[in-house]
């Protein structure tokens, strides 16, 4: 917004009490102050969030130090806690999700941004936005009663008989496990990849497409060799964003991952994730050390998503000059 005549910038606001009082004589300054307090509350909440996670995990941090991240045991009775199986499970399920969701989401985004007539494109985008609004517990519900049986009886045996020579697809088909959780996550994050990728593709100037077509490129060549590379950084941004979502997703994973702290190279194996162990054990945690270890897991999850989100938004900001209103809420 352009500065209006009597807009006061923070630089003009004095910070001494007298200067503040002087500034508060007019109604404008009072409105300024009230709205500023509201905006500052958001910053305060975020700082407080970090502070709470940090202080409440102090006991666990002091006792286990860095070995917390490389220890496999999780034994509440003996008071011995290690985060490795949870971190492993979180990363594996998210990786499976990305392998499925990124090609699907980017492909669909290319269709919506480049090929579909505007009317069709906007109505399909509407449907995708609705898909993003479906509560995660609903995905979990469908996962438990629909996907798990199908995985156990059909998909996992099929994978085993065709790709069973890979260590990824070994072991008994339980239905639950890393692969199932990854598939549910993939369906959940596709709308995010789609909507952000579509935005950044649409932000590529029309001239570039026309120049490629004028040189004799086919529609696909202009899209794949000109438009997609131009939007590349933003598409990476959408991938990071989807990854951050997948890492922190709780309910759907909790319901299908098997909730068993196992580290296994096979995607058929049951596992656990950081968010899932928090959902299952937090309200029943007895003893300060147990609670503190769980909160430290929360801190790890927070830091992971914080960094990824920051990175994602930076990348999207770089590709779309305006950088706002892009993200689905």
């Amino acid at each position, binding site marked *: *917004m352009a500065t*209006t005549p*009597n*807009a006061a910038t*923070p*630089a003009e606001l004095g910070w001494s009490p007298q200067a503040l009082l002087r500034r508060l004589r007019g*109604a404008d300054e*009072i*409105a*300024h102050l009230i*709205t500023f307090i*509201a*905006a500052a*509350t*958001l*910053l305060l*909440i*975020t700082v*407080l*969030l970090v502070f709470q996670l940090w202080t409440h995990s102090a006991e666990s941090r002091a006792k286990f130090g860095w070995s917390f991240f490389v220890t496999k045991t999780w034994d509440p009775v003996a008071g011995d806690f290690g985060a490795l199986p949870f971190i492993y499970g979180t990363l594996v399920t998210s990786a499976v999700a990305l392998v499925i969701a990124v090609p699907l989401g*980017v492909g669909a985004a*290319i*269709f*919506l941004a*480049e*090929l*579909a007539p505007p009317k069709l494109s906007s109505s399909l985008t509407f*449907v*995708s936005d*609705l*898909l993003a*609004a*479906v*509560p*995660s*517990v*609903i*995905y979990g*519900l*469908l996962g*438990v009663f*629909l996907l798990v049986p199908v995985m156990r009886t059909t998909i996992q045996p099929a994978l085993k008989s065709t790709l069973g020579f890979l260590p990824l697809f070994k072991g008994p088909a339980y239905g639950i496990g890393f692969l199932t959780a990854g598939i549910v996550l993939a369906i959940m994050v596709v709308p995010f990849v*789609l909507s952000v990728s579509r935005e950044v593709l649409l932000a590529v100037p029309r001239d570039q497409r026309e120049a490629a077509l004028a040189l004799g490129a086919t529609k*696909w060549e202009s899209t794949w060799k000109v438009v997609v590379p131009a939007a590349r950084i933003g598409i990476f941004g959408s991938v990071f964003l989807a990854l951050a979502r997948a*890492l*922190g997703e*709780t*309910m759907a994973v909790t319901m299908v991952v098997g909730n068993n702290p196992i580290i296994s190279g096979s995607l058929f194996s049951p596992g656990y994730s950081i*968010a899932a162990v*928090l*959902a299952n054990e*937090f309200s029943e945690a007895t003893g300060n050390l147990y609670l503190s270890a769980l*909160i430290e897991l929360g801190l790890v*999850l*927070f830091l992971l*998503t*914080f960094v990824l989100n920051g990175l*994602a938004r930076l990348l999207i900001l770089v590709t779309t000059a305006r950088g*706002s209103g892009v993200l689905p*809420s």
Partner: protein
Amino acid sequence: MSVRLMWRKSLNAFMLSLTGLCALLTVSALFFILGYLVWNGGKDLSWSFFTHLPAPVGEPGGGMANAILGTLKLLLLAALIGVPIGLLGGVYLAEFGGRTVPFLVRYTADLLNGVPSIVIGIFAYALVVMPMHHFSTLAGGFALGIMVIPTVLRNTESFLRDVPRALREGAFALGANKWKMIATVVLPAASRGILTGVLLALARVAGETAPLLFTAFGNRYWSPGWNQPTSSLPVVIYTYATGPYEDWHQQAWAAGLVLLGLVLLTNIMVRAFLTRGSAYERT
């Protein structure tokens, strides 16, 4: 036609239809989910589902009136906490801010929006449940309220920015000072968009389960007042779906249908009607 050109043309057709297939797969997921829920949950929906307490395991009938009321109470609290802060903060960003503070707030809002909901639950646990020493509706509402703030704030800001400059200048020309200009001209002009954002934010947190697990917890009975654990639709769906009883599973489908219907209807209504025909759309 040379071989190479034929190759290029068929690659073109193949890849383009592949992207179309991706889009089809993605959007059909929604219809599939909706259809499956209606098919499984529809037959268990009855009037008593909305008016009765859960029946003991093994007994037929029973409803989820307490969970529905619990969800509404949590949403009310979330709105009371999240909307004023988000709204006023958005006004600050769009109308008063300079350069550094708004940038910082905007960036923090986006990051807070991306924080996993279960971590927000831990925050509410540490801040509300620990000092009170018990689970409560209040704690759950607080957690959801925190999640509402960033969305409302960013949305309010972007709609305020879309209000044309001429309107502001008109207000100034009539002698209004700034807060009057904002309160009587800019906010009403953007009200439709702002309301959209608020409703979408509430629809989103209505389906949140993770932050409620250890804040609002759950309750088989009514939860009088604001100070006791309360049941809520998403948590009931989770508990029932992972429980061992066939009755529970059926009830979970019905509750899932109600929750999904609530969320999707809000989204569709808001997006289709409130945003259409706004007089101040960006051109």
